């Protein structure tokens, strides 16, 4: 675990009382700061709260919002709620996985993206829906995924392979709100 991360965690731990009820809020804070739960951080939390490390590990692996592995720079959450499902959410997820090149664990080799399915973002009226970091996008049909992700990709030199692949037709490039004809 890098020294810089440890440096962030210590002051964060100071903010909480040593009660068991604080376990989940502490882990949430660490996850928000480091984008994952480093092993050393889990040890320190266990020591602070005086609970067995196995308890901390159990909680960290039970809840979906925690990750034990570093995540990519951008977190892409594809909604698989029922409304999104009937409007092609599964296809959107698969397309997103292909476009970002993530592995089975959900993170791309260049650490640019982590893709995960989420249960429901509660924007069912605008299905299918996707959230990238803190921005929620409406009406993201599978054909719009590539255009949407473009803005989250690192800038590449003009001659790279990516530039040569034909772009998705302009009208399906998603601007917030999608196709308001």
């Amino acid at each position, binding site marked *: 675990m890098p020294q810089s991360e440890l440096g962030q965690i210590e002051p964060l731990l100071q903010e909480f009382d040593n*009660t*068991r*009820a*604080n*376990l*989940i*809020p502490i*882990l*949430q804070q660490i996850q928000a700061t480091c984008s994952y739960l480093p092993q050393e951080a889990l040890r320190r939390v266990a020591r602070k709260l005086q609970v067995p490390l196995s308890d901390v590990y*159990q*909680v960290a692996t*039970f*809840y*979906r*919002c*925690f990750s034990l592995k570093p995540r990519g720079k951008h977190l892409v959450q594809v909604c*698989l*709620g*029922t*409304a*999104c*499902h*009937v*409007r*092609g959410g599964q*296809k959107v997820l*698969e*397309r997103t996985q*292909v476009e970002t090149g993530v592995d089975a664990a959900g993170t791309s080799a260049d650490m640019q993206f982590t893709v995960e399915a*989420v*249960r*429901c*973002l*509660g*924007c*069912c*009226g*605008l*299905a299918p*829906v996707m959230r990238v970091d*803190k921005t*929620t*996008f*409406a009406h993201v*049909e*599978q*054909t719009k995924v590539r255009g949407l992700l473009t803005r989250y990709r690192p800038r590449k030199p003009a001659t790279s392979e990516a530039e040569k692949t*034909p772009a*998705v*037709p302009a009208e*399906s490039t998603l*601007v*917030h*709100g*999608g196709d*308001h004809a």
Partner: protein
Amino acid sequence: MPNHGAYPLRSLEDLQAVAELGRQRISPAQPKIMIGMATCGQAAGATEVLEAVREVVAQDKLPYVVSETGCIGWCSQEPLLDICIPGRPRVTYGRVTPARARQIIRALPEPKPQWALATMPGDENTLTGYYTSYLAGEDTPLRGVKSYRDLPLFKRQLRIVMRNCGLIDPASFEEYIARGGYTALWQALRTQTPQQVVDGVTKSGIRGRGGAGFPTGRKWQTVREAPGSPKYVICNADEGDPGAYMDRGVLEGDPHSVLEGMTIGAYAMGASEGIIYVREEYPLAVARMKDAIRQSEVAGLLGANIFGSGFGFTVRVVTGAGAFVCGEETALIRSIEGKVGEPQQRPPYPAVRGLNGKPTCINNVETWANVPVIIARGGEWFASIGTPGSKGTKVFSLVGNIENTALIEVPMGTTLAEIVYEIGGGIPGNRECKAIQTGGPSGGCIPASKFNLPVDYDSLTAAGSIMGSGGMIVMDDHTCMVDIAKYFLGFLEDESCGKCFSCREGTQRLKEIVQRISEGHGVDEDLVLLEELSWMVREVSLCGLGQTAANPVLSTLRYFREEYLEHIHHQRCPAKVCRQLITFAIDPVTCNGCGACVQVCSGKAILGEKNKLHTIEQAHCTKCGACMDICKFDAVTVN
């Protein structure tokens, strides 16, 4: 929040002074522009619209007020922008872009009829019972624009829970009070004993809005009588059902209504501490609730000695960590205690032994938001709405394949046909309605032939579904019921906490069988096995998740058995959804070789030069259907 010198609020007069400030904010002397800034509005682009409006108003030095509001429920038309001109009906514009917003603003003070969806001549406040007209004189209708009163989407609605959503700025404490907020709290604390409050709730006949429908009054009475101190009240805002977002709408659009309800409940039950458990997928709801708590603390409506009554109450927000099962009350309590969210054996019920082993009342967001109205209007008034067994109204999220995707609130007993065809405007594209899914993963699919069913707790249960929290997903004939059963089983398999063998293994095996059927490898005996296994999972599992896990299978088997048999006997998916049973092809006559499909094909399976006929190489086709989605000439067919 400015301190008006009146804080802490001690009396009705103090409230009225704040209400006056709120009224000036709701109906200022200048034209007011409101933008719906709930999460769904923002997803549709409301943030950009708001920025554009602010920019125009600043640039042109226009004397207009710009304000945010919550979700009025017209989801299909987001982002929404409203113009309120003193003495005239409010005008709602839909699908507003920044460019359109600028044009709308620059046309003021005369509202543009173009892009206008509806006009609102006034509103009825179900809390106070008063109708407020916005008009100074005659109604001045906009050319060709309907009134909210005449719109099928709104005219059948009765808004008790959503009384303020889309009408007030959710960040404004004063505006909430101007709509009668916190008078019910004053009334309860200063004019009623705790037992009288419980009696009022019992008389109202309200049942828990989280899904199970337990009588709220009875729960309150139990907590009130249970020995132990301190007592807790919890707001369950872990709205996990996919396809449901009623609670988010209320938390984001009217957070104080929930706080007020909880404070009244705490007084009635003798609780001193409240917790709002919000799922982490709702960051805006968390922020709104935290703001509302802070405002109430400043105003003295939380803390010690509220309204000088001697009663004290504090509330905090706990954020969930992403586990569906935590919507179950005992799992939710474990989660607040910092443990894994595994449900516990009941009894003892949380009402007797809950958080930290103390009596705890857990109610859903919608239940709490109803409470101030029940106190203000009386239990009898509330009980006059709805059906004999289900009182009041219910908020539903009407989504899926429906013309008006919306958040609606209707009296209990409204029929599914009224909801789908009248309020929802039917199915888009002249397609046929096949079924409606209610109750989330614990619910079931009700076929269109049963749409004369009144929506109440008992009728839905009798039909093999449940009321649940209020998600209604409409499905057209492009939806495969085997696929839907597989979808929910996959959901439950993932979300089962793993404590009970029956649920952990049962959902997995059920899913495997349905998966097999969807791939065309099913046999007749599979249906018998499905029913037997479903029965076992239901009977043996500990909590609601397991006990209802088989509902999606059982209800689809009950009403759509033919569709299962079609998959089994003929390896055919009538809705053309199950991938192993369909093939895509390009019609040689219609294809003009535009190349759009080649670019989107995820399997690089489409061959053909530009302007020449394209063909699909079946061996590489992933059946994603992107070619069909993108083809403008309907040249891609599926069989």
